[in-house]
C-alpha cells in the first residue's frame, strides 16, 4: 500500500515535468489505433477465423442485435458498425457472428498498453483500443520516431498477433487524424506544414471531434471540408458552434495544445450504464427490472472506483427515438443501488410519458473519489459509526505520524475472493487503470 502511495507521487512528478516540457515547442505525439480490435482479438484467439468475414454483435439472437465491429473481410462486403444484424447477413451470407468476449479484449488491451508504457511513461489511454503517447523525450538509442513506431507496431504484431495503425504528429489531433489515413497496419507521419495537402481536402465529417450533427450544421454554412473550416471567419463559427467552434477551427489549422495526460483516464465526472430493450415496451415490471440491473452495474463500477456521486440521471429513449434525460441532485453522496434506484424511480414517476420505451440509461453524476469527501453522519445511524470512533482516532494519530493512505481499504484485496468485476462495454474505461498497477 505504501507502494501505491509511491506510484501516486511518481505520477505527480512526471506530470509536472511533462507540463514544463510541453511549454517548449516541437512535441512528438503518437496515436496508436488498433485495427478492427474485437475481431482481431478473436482471430488471435482462434486462428481458424483468419481470413473469414467476422462480426461481433451485441445480441445475435435478438431483433436489436447490431454489429459492434467487424473484420476487414466483412467490411469489404459492406458490413458496417451499428448495422443491424439481419442487414449484415444479407450483404454477407457467410458472415461469422460472435458475441463480444470483453474479458479477452480487456486482457489484450492491458498487454498493448504495457508495450506502449515500455517506450514512455506518457501514455494516455483513450479507450480499450486506442491511446496517445508523447515521445518528445524519447530515448535516442531506440532510433528515429518513425523507427520507434515501426518497432512498436511489429512488437504488437508478433507478441499479440494484433495489428494497429500509428499516426505521428506534433499534437494529439493531428496524430489521431494521421492514424486514420492508412489502415490497416499503417504508419503515417503528418507534419504541420503538410496539413494543406493532406488534411484540408478531407470532408468535414471525417474530422475528429465533428459528429454528424455538427457536420450538418457546418454544411449549412457551406463548410464541407476541413480546409473550409480552417478558413472560415472565427466570429461566424462561434455563432454556429459556440466556444467549441474556435477549438475545432484551431484543430483544422493543425493547432491542438492539449497534453498527453496519463491521468486523464482517472478523472471521471459520471458513471453510467444503459441498455436497449429487446422490444419496445410499456411494461413497468420489465422496465423496473432493467433499472435494477443497470443500478447494479453502476453500483459495482462505483465501488470499483471507490467513488460516490450526488446526482442521478435517468435517460429514456422512446420508440420514436425521442430521448429525454432528467436528473436530480441530492444533498448527500450516494453509491448504493438502493439510493440510486430510489431517485431513478422518482424521476421515472415524474417524467415517463407512458409511451413505449426502447432504451433506459442510468448515470450517477458529480462523481468524486471517496477520499476527497467528507461523510455526513445520520441521526438514526450514527451510533454504528460512533462505535468506531476510537479506531478512527487511532488512525488519525498514526496518519499524522506516518503519512496518508496507511489504512485505506484495498478494494482489490477485498474482492479477491469474489468474482472479478467485468466491464461490459467498450465505453467503460475503468479497467484502463490496471495496466499500471
Amino acid at each position: 500500500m505504501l507502494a501505491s502511495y509511491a506510484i501516486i507521487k511518481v505520477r505527480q512528478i512526471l506530470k509536472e515535468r511533462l507540463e514544463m516540457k510541453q511549454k517548449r515547442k516541437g512535441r512528438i505525439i503518437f496515436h496508436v489505433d488498433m485495427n478492427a480490435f474485437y475481431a482481431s482479438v478473436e482471430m488471435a484467439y482462434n486462428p481458424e477465423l483468419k481470413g473469414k468475414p467476422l462480426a461481433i454483435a451485441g445480441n445475435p439472437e435478438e431483433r436489436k442485435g447490431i454489429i459492434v465491429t467487424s473484420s476487414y473481410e466483412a467490411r469489404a462486403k459492406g458490413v458496417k458498425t451499428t448495422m443491424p444484424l439481419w442487414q449484415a447477413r444479407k450483404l454477407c451470407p457467410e458472415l461469422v457472428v460472435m458475441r463480444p468476449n470483453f474479458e479477452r479484449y480487456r486482457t489484450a488491451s492491458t498487454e498493448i498498453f504495457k508495450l506502449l508504457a515500455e517506450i514512455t511513461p506518457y501514455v494516455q489511454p483513450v479507450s480499450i483500443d486506442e491511446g496517445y503517447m508523447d515521445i518528445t523525450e524519447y530515448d535516442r538509442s531506440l532510433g528515429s520516431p518513425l523507427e520507434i513506431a515501426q518497432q512498436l507496431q511489429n512488437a504488437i504484431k508478433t507478441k499479440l498477433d494484433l495489428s494497429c495503425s500509428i499516426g505521428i504528429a506534433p499534437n494529439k489531433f493531428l496524430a489521431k487524424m494521421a492514424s486514420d489515413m492508412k489502415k490497416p497496419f499503417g504508419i503515417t507521419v503528418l507534419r504541420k506544414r503538410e496539413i494543406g495537402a493532406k488534411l484540408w481536402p478531407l470532408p468535414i465529417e471525417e474530422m475528429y471531434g465533428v459528429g454528424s450533427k455538427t457536420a450538418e450544421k457546418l454544411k449549412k454554412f457551406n463548410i464541407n471540408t476541413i480546409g473550409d473550416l480552417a478558413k472560415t471567419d472565427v466570429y461566424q463559427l462561434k455563432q454556429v458552434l459556440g466556444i467549441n467552434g474556435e477549438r475545432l477551427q484551431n484543430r483544422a489549422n493543425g493547432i491542438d495544445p492539449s497534453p498527453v495526460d496519463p491521468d486523464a483516464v482517472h478523472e471521471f465526472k459520471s458513471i453510467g450504464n444503459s441498455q436497449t430493450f429487446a422490444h419496445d415496451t410499456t411494461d413497468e415490471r420489465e422496465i423496473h427490472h432493467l433499472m435494477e440491473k443497470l443500478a447494479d452495474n453502476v453500483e459495482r463500477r462505483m465501488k470499483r472506483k471507490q467513488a460516490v456521486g450526488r446526482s442521478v440521471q435517468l435517460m429514456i429513449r422512446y420508440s420514436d427515438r425521442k430521448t429525454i434525460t432528467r436528473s436530480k441532485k441530492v444533498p448527500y453522496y450516494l453509491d448504493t443501488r438502493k439510493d440510486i434506484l430510489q431517485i431513478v424511480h422518482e424521476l421515472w414517476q415524474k417524467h415517463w410519458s407512458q409511451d413505449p420505451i426502447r432504451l433506459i440509461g442510468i448515470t450517477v453524476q458529480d462523481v468524486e473519489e471517496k477520499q476527497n469527501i467528507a461523510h455526513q453522519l445520520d441521526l438514526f445511524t450514527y451510533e454504528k459509526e460512533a462505535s468506531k470512533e476510537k479506531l478512527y482516532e487511532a488512525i488519525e494519530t498514526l496518519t499524522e505520524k506516518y503519512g496518508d493512505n496507511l489504512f485505506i481499504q484495498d478494494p482489490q484485496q477485498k474482492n479477491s475472493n469474489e468474482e472479478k468485476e467485468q466491464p461490459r462495454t467498450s465505453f467503460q474505461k475503468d479497467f484502463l487503470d490496471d495496466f499500471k498497477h
Partner: protein
Amino acid sequence: MKFIVQRDKLIASVQDVMKAISARTAIPILTGMKIEAKKNGLLLTGSNSDISIESHIPVEEEGIVHIEQIEEGSIVLQARYFPEIVRKLPEKTVEVEADANLNVTIRSGKAEFNLNGQDADEYPQLPKLQTDESFELPIDLLKNLIKQTVFAVSTMETRPILTGVNLKLEDNKLSFTATDSHRLASREIPMDSTNVSFSSVVVPGKSLNELSKILDDSEETVEISVTNNQILFRTKHLNFLSRLLDGNYPETSRLIPDQSKTVIHIKTKELLNTIDRASLLAKEDRNNVVKLTTKSNQIVEITGNSPEVGRVVEEVNVDSIQGEELKISFSSKYMLDALKAIEYDEVKIDFTGAMRPFIIRPANNDPILQLILPVRTY
C-alpha cells in the same frame, strides 16, 4: 354572477390563493381559481393535492366598502391569466361578470377582457373538517415556530415523513420538530388554555412555508384545528387547509443526547460570522465542511479547507469551555441555519464526541434546540 371590487383587495386575495394553485395537477380544473360571489362578499379558492386556500373579501369592513353590485353566482377562471390581468388593469375598481354560457367579462376603465370560464359545479368540494376542537395562537408566534424549524425538513422523498414538521400538543406544551436526519430543529412553547391534545401530526414543510408567506402580520390570532388527515389554519379572512403526511414520525426525543463531554458558551454572532467566513473556503459540493478545534480555556479555532482553493483559520473567543478537548468537523451550512434560527445573543453548545450529535441551545435554556450531526472526514 357579477360584482365590482376594489382592485387592491382582489389582488391581495388572488395572490394568497395562487399559493395553492399549480400548473401541473392531475385534476385539470384545479389549474383554475374558483370565485364565488355571495351577499356577504367574495370567496376565492385555490387548491392542489396538498393544500387548499380560501380567501374571503367581505362586502365591507370598518365602514369601508370593498364590493358593490353583487349578483350571486360562481365561476372558475384560468389561474394562468386571471392574476396578471387583474394586476395590470388600469383603474382602482374591477368589474367581473359571468353569463350563463360561462363567458366572463372583466372591465376596468376602458379595458375589457373576455375570458372563457369553467363551471364552478365541476370544481371539487373542499373536504369539510370534522372537528370542533381547536386552539388559538398569536400569528407572529406561529410564524416564529415555523421559521425556527421548517428549514430542517428533508428535501428528499427517501423518507417522506421527514419532509414534514412534527406537531405535538401534550401536557400543555406545543412543540414543532423537524429533521432531515442530518440535523434537527425543535421548539416548544407552553399552551395553558386548551384541552386539545394530539401527538403525531406531521404537516408538509411546503405547506408551512406557504402558510407563513400568506399569514398577515396585521391579523392577530390564528385558529388551528386538527383531524386525522388534515389541518386547518383559520384567520378572519383566510382558510388554509393542508393534508397531513401519512406514517409515524420517528421518536426523536430519545435520539437527543442528555449528557455532554464538552460544553462551550459563545456569542452567537461571533460564531456565526466566523463560520460564515470559514465556509467561503468550504466547498459546497463537499458538504461545506468546517472544522472546530478547542484551543485553550477561552479559544476555539475554526478552519475551512479546500485543497484546490486554499485554507482559512480563525480563532474565536468563547465565554467558556468545559470538559474534554475536541476536534469536530461539520457542515457550515447546517451550523449557520441553526445559529440564525436561535435568535438569542448567547448560545450553549453541548458536544458529545467527534462522531456524535451536538446541540445548540440559547444560553438561557429556552426550549429551542438545534441538533447537528458532524461529518466524518475519510
